């Protein structure tokens, strides 16, 4: 177990568990947190998981963990680890079962005051148009060819179908399509799960949320994104659904034998891995990229359906009910990137699990309008609390493999949340604050109670103070749709 006395203070918001803490660590663990957040983090096993992550073969630099970190199932949520490419390892568990779980943000010119009386209708329309909940299928069932195309083309497939605009794709991480997807490496079972799930939200902590832009901190960046104070925005949080979950399950299983073949010993079997350039590593990357593309396509279709909901609820009430894309980010992903390590440009495989890419100004892969400001970073809070729009910085490129936090981070277990919160009471509490709730499950709502999460404002202040992201705007929820 890691004690606070084992952790060295670098600054008010940066700490380190040195490599010498445990003999099997290959690199140190760098923690971005205030003292207060660090004490909260020490309440579960996430620091021990970060130390375990630091034993992965081929690690470069350090394992980085964010102020929203919490215990996961092997790799900590809020963690970033970069391995040498091509002979370092890739670990499916260090990316997660929900491959390319992420957030899409759309903005509008709709002033909240002009539609206050329509927000309940809007919440209901979103709930009708965007399938959510356990076991819910989508409106579209892909045939085998279409599923293969989605695996290869991601959100770009939705453009061909008329469910996307070119601007949507330009303003997406990887422009909505990961290269290198290999459908041949995706199992029959994963395909069975994926075919009727495109355009579905799922359940758990996934949501669609209507927000108001509450405060602007960077006028230039907000203008580049089209964010206006007092206007509505829409967040969509979901991932690759059963398709991605199955791919990760398949490869975590297959890698158990691979790790033995490559003589890799790990403190946690969920960290199982293989060299990136091994047949197993190449197969997983191909399948992972296919899942990532499924998730991009999924969020794209949900955005299209949400636009239909906005039209149904608000056409005739306001002149312009259009939603424009601000950005789409992944917070569970593995990517091959080039980063500076000890003064040299090094190609690495960056694992982000509950952490967001946060490329700074001038970085590759950004659309022209974001080149000067940096990549938008979308940080949803819990229900009933704020969410944030940030941008990446040169600081993140130097100190965290171009990464930053992803959300508020849980502090309370789901079972404790269920014991202490009644879903129906929570719904009434949120509605009393003016937040319209559409939830498929009261038990699920209780598990996602705001008190189960860290203070997202404190998380964002920390990454801003650490220089690994910069504040652009704060969003306040007015309607939430949950499965």
């Amino acid at each position: 177990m890691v004690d606070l006395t084992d952790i060295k203070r670098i600054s008010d918001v940066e700490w380190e568990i040195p490599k010498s803490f445990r003999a099997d660590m290959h690199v140190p663990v760098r923690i971005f947190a205030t003292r207060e957040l660090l004490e909260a983090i020490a309440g579960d096993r996430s620091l021990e998981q970060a130390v375990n992550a630091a034993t992965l073969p081929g690690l470069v630099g350090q394992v980085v963990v964010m102020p929203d970190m919490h215990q996961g199932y092997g790799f900590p949520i809020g963690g970033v680890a970069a391995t040498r490419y091509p002979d370092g390892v890739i670990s499916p568990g260090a990316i997660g079962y929900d491959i390319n779980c992420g957030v899409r943000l759309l903005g509008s010119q709709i002033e909240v005051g002009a539609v206050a009386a329509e927000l309940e209708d809007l919440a209901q329309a979103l709930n009708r148009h965007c399938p959510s909940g356990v076991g819910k299928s989508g409106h579209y069932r892909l045939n085998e060819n279409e599923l293969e195309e989605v695996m290869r083309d991601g959100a770009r497939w939705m453009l061909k179908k008329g469910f996307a605009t070119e601007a949507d794709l330009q303003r997406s991480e990887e422009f909505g399509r990961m290269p290198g997807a290999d459908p041949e490496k995706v199992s029959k079972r994963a395909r069975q799960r994926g075919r009727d799930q495109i355009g579905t939200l799922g359940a758990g902590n996934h949501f669609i949320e209507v927000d108001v832009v509450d405060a602007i901190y960077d006028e230039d960046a907000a203008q580049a994104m089209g964010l206006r104070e007092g206007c509505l925005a829409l967040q969509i949080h979901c991932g690759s659904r059963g398709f991605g979950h199955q791919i990760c399950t398949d490869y975590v299983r297959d890698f158990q034998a691979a790790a033995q073949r490559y003589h890799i010993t790990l403190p946690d079997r969920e960290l199982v891995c293989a060299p990136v350039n091994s047949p197993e590593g190449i197969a997983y990357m191909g399948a992972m990229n296919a899942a990532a593309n499924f998730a991009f396509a999924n969020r794209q279709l949900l955005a299209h359906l949400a636009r239909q909901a906005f039209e149904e609820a608000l056409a005739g009430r306001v002149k312009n009910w259009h939603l424009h894309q601000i950005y789409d980010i992944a917070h569970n992903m593995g990517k091959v990137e080039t980063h500076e390590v000890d003064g040299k440009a090094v190609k690495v495989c960056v694992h982000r699990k509950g952490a967001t890419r946060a490329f700074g100004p001038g970085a590759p892969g950004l659309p022209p309008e974001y080149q000067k400001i940096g990549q938008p970073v979308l940080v949803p809070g819990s229900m009933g609390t704020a969410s944030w729009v940030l941008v990446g910085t040169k600081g993140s490129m130097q100190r965290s493999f171009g990464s930053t936090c992803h959300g508020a981070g849980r502090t309370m277990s789901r079972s404790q949340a269920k014991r202490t919160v009644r879903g129906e009471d929570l719904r009434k509490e949120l509605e009393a604050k003016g937040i319209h709730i559409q939830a498929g499950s009261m038990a699920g709502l209780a598990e996602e109670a705001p008190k189960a999460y860290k203070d997202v404002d404190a998380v964002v202040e920390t990454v801003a103070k650490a220089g690994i992201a910069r504040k652009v705007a704060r969003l306040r929820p007015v309607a939430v749709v949950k499965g």
Partner: protein
Amino acid sequence: MPEKAPSGFEEIEHTADWALRVWAPDLAGLLEEAARGMYELSGIRLQKGARVIRSFKVESTDAEGLLVNFLSELLHFAEKEKLAFDTFELLVSESVVDARLEGAPIVEQKKEIKAVTYHNLSVRAGPQGLSAEIVFDV
């Protein structure tokens, strides 16, 4: 202090996911308790009257792998066929589980489990039999 039942399951605390502790006299019993526990965590309720039977085999090199693969198979039935099971006939060897399960269509499922993980999974032998702690991704 009441004696613990020879087999059973209980939910254990985990920050973001769900976790179970399961125990039973043998591996077949452990698999059954893990299945029942997983269904309870999901809030699954079965249709009365209608009965279905499914048979399958899973393989692995160790007990932990058998546990993960067996439960993953049950997740697959729940998602794709909307079926769950309440009667288990399990033939378990070192590397194979031969399962014949009886159950029914699911009429209600309150929560979704994404996957069964290997995190800290270890099937331990003790004086009363076997036990394990299983973490599920949700």
